C-alpha cells in the first residue's frame, strides 16, 4: 500500500482529521508527522528565508522529516473561500506553500496538492482533484469525502480554567497555540502564572464593533471576532494576542483589536492587552516574566492600573 504523508503544521491543525480520513478512504496509508520538536523546527529554519514566519519554518521542518519515509506528500494550497457573499483569502504563505516548498526542496517525493479556491471551483471539486492527483479514478472519492465530512475536528479547544485566577482570553492561530514547541505552551504558562486562560473561540460577525472593518482573510476574521467576543464578556479580565514575528496579517488584526476594543460595550475605559510575538529566538524565561507581570497587573484593583501602558511587542 502506498503511503501519503501529511505534515502536522499550519492548516493541518484545522483540517487534519478530514484530510487523513479522505486519503485513507482512497486506499492509502496515511503517515502524519510527529508533533513539532526542536530538531524539526531547526531543520526548517536552516533552509527557510529568515523573514518567514515561524509556523511556515516549522512546516518546512516537518516536510524534511516526513519526506524520506513516504511515497507521496500532501501539499495544501489554501487560496480562498466564499462566505456570506464575500471572498475570504488565506494568507499569501498558505496560497503559495507548495511553490515555496518545491523551490526550497527540489528533491521531494511526488507531491499531491489539495487546492481550495472557491473562485475557481467548489470544495468538493478540491477533493476530487486530489483523488485524481493521487491516481484514484472513478467515484471512490465521493464515498471517501462523505466519510471525511462526518469526522468532526475537535479544534484547539483549550480551557485551562483556574477558579482563583483572572480570566484571560488567548487569541491566536490554531497552528501556533496548538503547537507547544512554537508557542512554548503559552496557555499552560499563563495558568502557571496564576491566570485562568482559555483559547478564544470565534463569535459571529456581530461581535465586531461598528466602524471596525474586517479584512478578507478567513482565519484572521475568526480571530478578530473571537477577540471582540471575549472583550464583550465581563468575566474576561484581559486579552493575550499571540502572533508570530513577521506575521503580516497579525500586524493588521492586532492593530484593529487595539484600536476598536474601546467601542465594545463595557470596555470604554480600555482593556488590558498583552501582545506576544513568537520566533525562533523566543525564550521561555522571558515569556514567563511577561506573563507573570501581566497577570499581576490584572489582579490589581482597576483604579490603580494604567491601562494604556499594556505591554507591546517582544
Amino acid at each position: 500500500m502506498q503511503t501519503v504523508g501529511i505534515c502536522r503544521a499550519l492548516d493541518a491543525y484545522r483540517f487534519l482529521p478530514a484530510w487523513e480520513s479522505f486519503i485513507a478512504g482512497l486506499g492509502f496509508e496515511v503517515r502524519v508527522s510527529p508533533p513539532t520538536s526542536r530538531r524539526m523546527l531547526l531543520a526548517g529554519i536552516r533552509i527557510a528565508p529568515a523573514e518567514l514566519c515561524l509556523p511556515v519554518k516549522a512546516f518546512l521542518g516537518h516536510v524534511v522529516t516526513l519526506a524520506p519515509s513516504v511515497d507521496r506528500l500532501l501539499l495544501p494550497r489554501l487560496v480562498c473561500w466564499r462566505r456570506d457573499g464575500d471572498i475570504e483569502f488565506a494568507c499569501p504563505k498558505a496560497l503559495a506553500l507548495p511553490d515555496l516548498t518545491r523551490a526550497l526542496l527540489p528533491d521531494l517525493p511526488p507531491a499531491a496538492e489539495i487546492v481550495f479556491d472557491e473562485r475557481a471551483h467548489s470544495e468538493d471539486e478540491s477533493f476530487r482533484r486530489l483523488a485524481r492527483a493521487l491516481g484514484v479514478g472513478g467515484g471512490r472519492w465521493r464515498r471517501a469525502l462523505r466519510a471525511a465530512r462526518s469526522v468532526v475536528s475537535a479544534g484547539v479547544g483549550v480551557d485551562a480554567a483556574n477558579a482563583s485566577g483572572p480570566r484571560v482570553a488567548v487569541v491566536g492561530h490554531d497552528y501556533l497555540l496548538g503547537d507547544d514547541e512554537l508557542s512554548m505552551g503559552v496557555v499552560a504558562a499563563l495558568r502557571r502564572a496564576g491566570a485562568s486562560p482559555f483559547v478564544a473561540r470565534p463569535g459571529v460577525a456581530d461581535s465586531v464593533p461598528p466602524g471596525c472593518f474586517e479584512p478578507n482573510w478567513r482565519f484572521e476574521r475568526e480571530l478578530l471576532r473571537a477577540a471582540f467576543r471575549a472583550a464583550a464578556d465581563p468575566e474576561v479580565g484581559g486579552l493575550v494576542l499571540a502572533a508570530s514575528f513577521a506575521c503580516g496579517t497579525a500586524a493588521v488584526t492586532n492593530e484593529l483589536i487595539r484600536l476598536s476594543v474601546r467601542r465594545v460595550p463595557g470596555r470604554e475605559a480600555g482593556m488590558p492587552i498583552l501582545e506576544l510575538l513568537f520566533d525562533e529566538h523566543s525564550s521561555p524565561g522571558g515569556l514567563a516574566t511577561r506573563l507573570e507581570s501581566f497577570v499581576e497587573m490584572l489582579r490589581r484593583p482597576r483604579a490603580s492600573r494604567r491601562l494604556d501602558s499594556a505591554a507591546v511587542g517582544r
Partner: protein
Amino acid sequence: MKLAFPYMGEIRVVLAPILRELGIEPVVPPPPDRRVLELGVRLAPELMCIPFKLTLGNMVRSLELGADTLAYVSGSWSCRFGYYGRLQAEILRGRGYRFRLIELRHDSLGAIARELIALSGGRTERAAVRLARALRLGWHKSRALDCAQECCRRTMPRAARPRDCRAAYRDLVRAIEATGSVAGLARLERSIPGSFARVPLDGRGRVPRVMLVGESFCTIEPFINFDIIARLGEIGVEVEPFLTEHRWLGFHGFRVGKGELVRARRAARRYWRDCVGGEDENSLGHLILAARSGYDGVIHVHPFGCMPGTVVQPALERASRDYRIPFLSLSLDEHTSEVGFQTRVEAFASLLERRRC
C-alpha cells in the same frame, strides 16, 4: 475638496494636474525625509511593511497642510496593500484627525463617478469631458516623465559626470510640472532624448545591465530603495526597473514586445502557480525575461515582512540558478543601513563586472 493621496515616486506629477482638471485641489507633501519616516514608524504597527509606514507619515503631513480628504487604491486581496486606506484612516482618526476617506475600488467607482458629476454642477456630459481632458493631460505628463526617467538611466552609466544626468532629469521634471498643455508636453517629450544626448560620455562600450524586480513601492520610491537606480548608474551599471510610475498608474507602455513578457510569465508558472499580490508573479516573469534577454543580473527589492516578497524569494533564487543569472535580494525597512546597502550593491556590481571579463 482638498485631497491627498499616498506619496510614491513622482506620481504626484501625474495625479496633481488630473485632480486640478477635475476641480479638486491636490495636497502634495514635500518629498519624504527621515523625519516623516520616523513619524510613520511611530504611528504604525511595528510589523506593517515600510510602504505603509512612509505613506502614513506623509498623510499626516498632508493633513497638516490642510487636506480634508484622503484617497487610496483599495481592495481585498491576500496581501495587505488593499487595507492601507482603511487601516491608516483608523489610526489617524484615533489620533484625532478629521477627514473623509475615499477608496478607489471596484465597488466604489459608481459613487466616485457621481461625485465627479456633482463637482461639474450635476452635468454628466460636462463631467465626462472634464474626466477625458484630465486623463489625457495626465497621460502626456506620465509619458514625458517616463521618457525622462528612461533616458536618464540609460545615459548615466556612460556619462563622464553622472551628476549631469541628475541635473538634466531634475530640470525636466520641473519643466513637466510647469507645462500645462498637451501640445507643450508633446514638444517637451520630443526634446528629452536631445537633452540627454548633450551629456558628455566617458567612452565606455557595453555596460552591465541589471533588471530590478520586487514590490512596487520599493521599486519606484527612491527614498526607500536608497535611489538604487541612480546609485548603480553612478558606478556604471544600467538598471532597468520592471515597474515605473507610468506602468503602475496603468499607462502601460511596453518596453519589450508583449509576446516576450507573456512567454516569460508562462515560464514563471513552473515556479509559481498563482499571484498572491505584491508583484510576485511579475517579478519571476521579469527575472526569466532578463535571463533570456542577456541581462547580467537581477536585483530583488521588497519591504521587510512583505508576505508575497518573502514567500517568492526562494522561487526567485531557484529560477536564478536554473537560468544562471546572478541574483541579489534586498529587504528594506526603517532599520536598513545605507552603508550596508551600498556595500552589498557595490559587491554585486563588482561581481557582474568580473563575470563579463
